[in-house]
């Protein structure tokens, strides 16, 4: 794991890791110490992606299923097309020319041709035209995502964009546009050429503004939170005020609320939803992916969650390399660094905490994903979008995280013993009393976890033993039935 370091005068190296761990090494001999320090420094701040660990990592396990091809959009689309024929795959972006941050294949309304898409892409920030994010099988409502429209100060409109957006509505139905920025921020964006959908041109849509913070504010929040968690002072007031001042929990609440709102529009209101912020690569993805976890039981399984991450984060172009570069201990200010993905994982943990029996995966799975997003021997989270990933030839040169995770013996560690498939929509509470600090990440290195681990183990034992008994019972009753039938047969033959 790469690190940054501070050098003491007595040959002490303090390594601050991206997973928030802090290690102190006492090294005899000043020169050795300096050498080690500069090596660590050099190795932890590599310039080129291709020098990173994933390009040298040789797996010690046999690949059963290649993670790179486990979640192809075509496969996902097959599932969708078995329920509805209103959507189609578009290969318009196959050479990444229309939208550099989109994958080669996207799902769009069947009634919209590629020519229209091309025009819409020009009208949307970074070419991110509205695409399908989620189809709610229960009522056929959909969630789309995009980036902001480029209305500018003079309120430019784009008929093709309106056509595309409206194509997702049922006749006579209204939809909701969830703008992840405050109204104020959205209005200000017009000065820079951005903007939002105006009511006049989108009369069937109602716009709702939520306020989800952006990069540097989130990064500062993370730094403050981690600083608070590392504070060893015994002052309760100081801890609570630092926790409050970090605003981390505020952002958690805000993101969850927005996701719940989107889910509510779809499931309760029976309306379709379009989600976007500015670029549509950060807060937008937090909202769309969390809404799916709330709505779709499949996303709460391990495979389903992986698929969600691939669809809504990797293929959707969340710039992992920019966002997850240095984590909380960075000295240098990274302009694009932001714990957007960590916030998402934290929100998932909050829902998991409230619905402990509805997820196939456990907290450890989420912590592992957090670690790998920041530093990994696998290539999955390298690059900022599919375009970069294909240029880096990650599929050929590196190993996919999913190839490792999805091995049966690894999967065992990620399975939640309490899991019982729950096909319902799960509505988390967003009251402050219901949200907690994610101790598994933020306090992980600050206190011993022995007693909690033992509790986990005990729980697993209880449930495993029950399953064993249950199997046994089934087997026994099977035999009883068999004997019963045998008895009947014998009587008959007699």
């Amino acid at each position, binding site marked *: 794991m790469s690190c940054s370091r501070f050098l003491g005068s007595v040959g002490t190296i303090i390594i601050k890791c991206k997973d928030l761990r802090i290690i102190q090494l006492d090294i005899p001999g000043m020169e050795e110490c300096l050498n080690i320090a500069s090596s660590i420094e050099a190795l932890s701040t590599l310039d080129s992606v291709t020098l990173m660990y994933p390009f040298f990592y040789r797996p010690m396990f046999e690949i059963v299923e290649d993670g790179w091809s486990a979640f192809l959009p075509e496969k996902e689309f097959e599932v969708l097309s078995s329920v509805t024929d209103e959507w189609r795959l578009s290969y318009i972006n196959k050479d990444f020319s229309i939208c550099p941050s989109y994958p080669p294949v996207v799902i769009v309304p069947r009634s919209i041709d590629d020519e229209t898409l091309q025009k819409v892409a020009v009208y949307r920030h970074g070419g991110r035209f509205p695409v399908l994010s989620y189809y709610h099988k229960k009522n056929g409502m959909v969630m789309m995502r995009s980036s902001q429209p480029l209305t500018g100060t003079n309120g430019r409109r784009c008929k093709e964009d309106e056509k595309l957006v409206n194509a997702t509505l049922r006749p006579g139905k209204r939809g909701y546009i969830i703008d992840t920025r405050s109204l104020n921020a959205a209005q200000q964006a017009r000065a820079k050429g951005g903007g939002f959908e105006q009511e006049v041109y989108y009369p069937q849509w109602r716009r709702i503004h939520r306020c989800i913070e952006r990069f540097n504010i989130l990064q500062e929040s993370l730094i403050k939170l981690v600083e608070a968690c590392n504070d060893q002072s015994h002052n309760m007031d100081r801890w*609570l005020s630092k926790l409050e001042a970090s605003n981390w929990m505020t952002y958690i609440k805000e993101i969850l*609320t927005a996701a719940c709102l989107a889910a*509510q529009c779809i499931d309760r209101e029976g309306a379709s939803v379009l989600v976007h912020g500015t670029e549509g690569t950060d807060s937008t993805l937090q909202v769309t992916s969390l809404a799916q976890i709330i709505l779709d039981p499949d996303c709460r399984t391990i495979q389903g969650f992986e698929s969600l991450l691939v669809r809504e984060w990797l293929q959707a172009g969340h710039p992992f390399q920019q966002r997850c570069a240095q984590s909380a201990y960075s000295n240098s200010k990274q302009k694009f660094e932001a714990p957007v993905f960590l916030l998402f994982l934290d929100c998932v943990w909050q829902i998991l905490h*409230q619905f402990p029996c509805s997820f196939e995966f456990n907290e450890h799975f989420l912590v592992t994903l957090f670690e790998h997003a920041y530093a990994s021997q696998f290539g999955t989270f390298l690059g900022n979008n599919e375009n970069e990933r294909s240029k880096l030839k990650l599929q050929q040169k590196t190993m996919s995280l999913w190839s490792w995770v999805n091995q049966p013996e690894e999967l065992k560690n990620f399975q939640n013993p309490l899991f*019982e498939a729950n096909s319902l929509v799960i*509505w988390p*509470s967003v009251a402050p009393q219901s949200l907690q600090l994610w101790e598994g990440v933020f306090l992980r290195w*600050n206190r011993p976890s022995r*007693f909690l681990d033992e509790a986990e183990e005990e*729980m697993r034992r209880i449930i495993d033993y029950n399953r064993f008994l249950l199997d046994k019972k089934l087997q026994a009753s099977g035999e009883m039935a068999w004997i019963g039938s045998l008895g009947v047969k014998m009587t008959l033959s007699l």
Partner: protein
Amino acid sequence: MWALQSKGKNSWIEERKQLGRALSHKQCHVQYNHHLEFSRGCQRLTNHRPRQLARLQRSVLPAYPSERVEYTQLAGNPTANAAIADVSTTPFSCFYHGKLPALLPAQKISSVENVKLLDRYTNRRAASGTLYLTATHLIYVDASAEVRKETWILHHHIATVEKLPLTTAGCPLLIHCKNFHVAHFVIGQERDCHEVYTSLLKLSQPVKPEELYAFSYNPKMSKDNREIGWKLIDLKVDYQRMGIPNDYWEITDLNKDYEVCSTYPPEIVVPRAASKATVIGSSRFRSRGRIPVLSYLYKENNAAICRCSQPLSGFSARCLEDEQMLQAIREANPGSPFMYVVDTRPKLNAMANRAAGKGYENEDNYDNIRFKFIGIENIHVMRNSLQKLLEVCETKSPSMSDFLTGLENSGWLRHIKAVMDASVFLAKAVKDEKASVLVHCSDGWDRTAQVCSLASLLLDPFYRTFKGFMVLIEKEWIAMGHKFSHRCGHLDGDPKEVSPVFTQFIECVWQLMQQFPCTFEFNEHFLLEIHDHVYSCQFGNFLGTCHKEREDLKIFEKTHSLWPFLLQKKQELRNPLYRGFTAYKELQPNTLPFSFQFWCGMYNRFDKGMHPKQCVLDHLLSCMNQKIKLEDNASELENKLPFLDGPLPSEACYLSKVGCAASKTSMLNTPQDYQGEPPAVLSNGISVGDANVTSDVEQKNKENLANRRDLHRNDSVDVLNSEAKDGKPQHH
């Protein structure tokens, strides 16, 4: 329903809980503070849910216990024949053991119709129903729901009743309970509201002790059983467990006529070396005669925790006998050359007391003591702190920032941490430094009780069992004169005497449970039950202020003890993760601020929407119950089926199978063997993967299941019998 047998009720609760679990997924707590009007959706939801519930009940629930009809008739509500109480709002199933609570006499108001119950956090349509006042409870029956939903509030639990300004909907009545339930009623007629208001004021603040519920509560228990109940906890046995009497400590009846100290029990433990004159002399030098007595002896190294009140030292007074007393305590622990004297007050408070002729020990006057202040605030600060905390909890849709700032400003967790820090200090002094500790505050019945009991809990795993925790409360709180009656405001009295001292103790235990999930035999519900009953006055244990007063009140003759009732409910109150008595010894909790959490389950306990929608505890408890049933089932099946092991039979191998089964029949026919000899037999015929599970299980059985199993076998049969009759598991 009132005369419901414990068995019937338990089973019924169990089923209701399962139903609740099934339904919890369907719940939609729409509180995402948004700008949308979702009224249509929400209404549909509220209309929809009861119907689903009703349908599920028809399919899941067996016939309602016939006793329930009694209540329906009583309430005079003919439409509610298939009445069903919402157990979640009537958490005290103990109350069901009680006799029929009579409605109030005719001249007073006893029921009001068309009363609305507002939901505190959501804007959902208010429930509408009838409010009944009985001699002991306020009962609200929601008539708007298709399914009967009842809210019960014990009069003794009512902390405040407020009449709010009249609104168009009617006259609002806000009730705050001591168990942190808040009920907001709206009564149509102002006159009715006023009458309810005045009735409740009277009913919730009895003047004479005889009016307390415990004196009328009659669970139809024989006199003998009642007396046995009181004898369940014998403090002498606990002292014996510590090895007392021994060479250094003795149990003395010096206080049998309460001449040494009126608020101590008749029998106290003092150093053998302290003569009667020393004890009497010391008692004259201690506030209210509360001399140093033993609280806990750590057998391993003879270090003791002792407790007393502040000395009457003023600025310079001293007392030879008191100095001898401390010397005797120190010398009762020959392994340590010194002892700690811990004053749990902030130094400033202790110094201020000197002006009133009280104060703290002067290190120069006592040989080899190490004096230390640990600043835990007084009862008034704690009362105000809780008040602030509750205001935060009640805030309607607060922002995260509001909540955290409010939590900080209340100071509540700071105080919890202070109590915990002090207890950890005590435990460390005893265990690591092998030094005895004498603890006091002002009178030695609030902070001292908190700290001594928590330190014992940290040091001794016995106090983390059901029985041990009861002993601990009896010993450190009840016997040693924590003024429950005043602190809990049982009677109409000085509101400045009320303080959540015991609540803080309970919370500290809960905080420990969060850090050490496998070390307690009981679960969170056990703590909540105790907390409820400290205020409920339904049982005699917590009445009065000290042992003498309880004798005067004749509580041992006239009332029941809480503990046997809690033991009856052991099944639902136990901790499934408990690893047994010997698994952990001393606990060393982390007391950094982040180790303390806000206890939503206590302070927002009745706001179900805030709690996790699926409860791991309930899930594991039902697993445990299912387990015993399955084990019984398995042995039963084995009896019927001598050749259970081996591969699933096919006709071809039938004959050979009979042959191989014969050799094992003897074992299989004695299912009891299975307890001692875990599933070696059972594991036959399962796949290799499952074999690992078996060995785990085996190990576990050997490690700690022996006593747990007994417990299950004896207690859970009732619950199990009533669980799904077809033997089909509710889960998986």
